[in-house]
């Protein structure tokens, strides 16, 4: 570091801390220039030499801050160095992973491993859905008016227990009186609706798992009632096809989101040896990955629902596509990212 040019002829000797500053000021200003560049254009814009220089100037500034705290009482200097170091710290310790590497690692290792680690929570999610569906079906059998309690009017879209079998059939296959547009908008509605349900299910889990469970359970209720309504008109098989093509993916996604929420809730309920806050933090890692997975599956489900269900009109192929997707998900989650055992 070259000493700065002497200050304009002071008649007295500069005091020790002023000399300290004069010797290092050029380095700080240079650091400031580099920081400005890195903040504006990203660290990738720095050349090799500049990156090296930045790292070394950052350490020098940190060192100067440490010394200045011991020898200088110039508050302006201390504040400046503090802020300069903080700013440099934020540039030097920025996330360095590339977006692509990040996503690759997440897909190959992160998500499948997280799923395999959180089997108990997944069980809770699946249980909520199945219990809800069974209860919905049974209640519908007992009294058809339960249907109106479970299913919001907008979602039912005319498909109520009072509708004729022919109308119900037409909603499952195109070309009948049920117009295409209505179904299309219903599909998108369901998509955004279910996405929000999934996110909610997850985020609410932090309040002791219960809201997640209740929401998933409620989703199961709607599903069960729907199923039983179609089944009572002899359309169970066709509905299975209509639902399967996207539903295998979509319902699994909601269960997974519920499992993510359950992870958070379990951390609060049963923190084990850690404090609750620490437990929340450590189990949050898996929970977040489960949620990303759920989001991914929901997007897939939306594509299936939006396009393939309208294109594919036979129940057999619908079943094959739906459960085929399910098998693919299962294979990915069960097999990917396993550590090679020696």
């Amino acid at each position, binding site marked *: 570091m070259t000493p700065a040019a002497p200050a304009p002829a002071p008649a007295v000797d500069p*005091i020790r801390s*002023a000399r300290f500053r004069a010797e290092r000021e050029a380095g700080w200003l240079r650091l400031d220039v580099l920081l400005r560049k890195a903040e504006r254009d990203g660290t990738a814009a720095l050349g090799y030499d500049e990156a090296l220089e930045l790292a070394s100037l950052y350490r020098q500034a940190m060192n100067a*801050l440490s010394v200045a705290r011991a020898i200088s009482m*110039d508050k302006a200097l201390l504040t400046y160095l503090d802020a300069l170091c903080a*700013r440099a710290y934020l540039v030097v310790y920025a996330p360095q992973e590339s977006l692509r590497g990040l996503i690759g690692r997440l897909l190959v290792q992160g998500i499948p491993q997280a799923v395999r680690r959180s089997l108990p929570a997944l069980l809770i999610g699946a249980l909520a859905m199945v219990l809800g569906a069974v209860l919905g079906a049974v209640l519908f059998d007992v009294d058809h008016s339960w249907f109106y309690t479970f299913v919001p009017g907008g979602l039912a879209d005319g498909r109520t227990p009072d509708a004729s079998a022919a109308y119900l059939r037409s909603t499952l296959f195109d070309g009948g009186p049920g117009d295409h547009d209505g179904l299309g908008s219903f599909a998108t509605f369901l*998509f955004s609706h279910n996405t929000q349900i999934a996110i909610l299910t997850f*985020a609410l889990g932090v309040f002791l798992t219960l809201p997640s469970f209740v929401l998933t359970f409620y989703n199961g209720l709607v599903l069960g009632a729907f199923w039983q309504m179609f089944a009572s008109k002899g359309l169970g098989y066709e509905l299975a096809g209509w639902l399967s093509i996207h539903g295998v993916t979509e319902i699994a996604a909601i269960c997974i989101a519920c499992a993510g929420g359950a992870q958070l809730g379990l951390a609060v309920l049963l923190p084990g040896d850690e404090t609750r806050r620490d437990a929340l933090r450590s189990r949050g890692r898996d929970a977040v990955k489960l949620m990303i997975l759920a989001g991914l599956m929901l997007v897939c489900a939306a594509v299936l629902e*939006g396009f393939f269900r309208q294109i594919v009109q036979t129940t057999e192929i619908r079943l094959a596509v739906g459960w085929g997707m399910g098998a693919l998900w299962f294979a990915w989650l069960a097999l990917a990212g396993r550590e090679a055992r020696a």
Partner: protein
Amino acid sequence: MKTYAPTGLPAWEARGLLRHTPPESVPITFRLSTLGARFGAQTLDILITYGGVLLAIIGLTWAGAFSWNGLITFYALLTFFMRVPYYILSELVWNGRTLGKRMVGIRVISLDGRRLTPHQIVARNLMKEVEVFLPLATLFGASTMDIWLGGALSAWMIATLLVPVFSKLNQRLGDMVAGTMVVDNPRPVLLPDLSAQAAARGYEFRAEHLDIYGRYELQTLEAILREPPKSPEARKRVSEVAQTIRKRISYDEDLPESREWDFLLEFYRQQREYLESRHLFGDARENKFHAATGGQG
């Protein structure tokens, strides 16, 4: 992480300062963002995202690119990507700053002094859904709710909104899950060294003059000297300060008004040199009561 009260700072100034220890182990200071700034950034983000969606929709309608049905699908997709993914991607790419945060000048940092991990960013923004968007959505849908559900929801909403008010580091639930906090962007401003401005002005202070004050008074004087007086009232205040100091340190020379500023500059320089060298010898003088407390060094 402790809130950080640097010595010699009055309590009101030290509030909201945080000591953050990076891997170099030299503590640096961040200032916690105010709740107002965070609220402003959030509002800006919502305006930007939803405004962008709205503009895109209007543009597409105008261009006639989609049927009505297609527009609805497109809107659903856009709002999906404009919510959580927008916040995650922008905080990933700009290291803890969304567009709104950039404008307001605040950012997210990790509590542990290390770099922000992608996990932390994802976690805190997923929780944003329940803390920000859900209350907003229920607010708009509130008219269709019955009173019990509405009451329960608003109680819960208020509770979530109050979490950052009462948590020590103004953390919201998402910050707690992720181990992050929101601080002001540091803005370094290098001011000139006052001691270098003082050319010999003919004042010579002896040890008994310089033994009176401590670090706190010195830095208060520094703050005064950083703003040369412009109005007559300010000049009067400076003159009061100069005369008070002269009396307190029993400086026996007369001090005409024209020379008060020079006197203060010169006193600052010599006092600082004196205190700094005392400090090096282990005699830390925090303020003018150092003699009464027996000196802390």
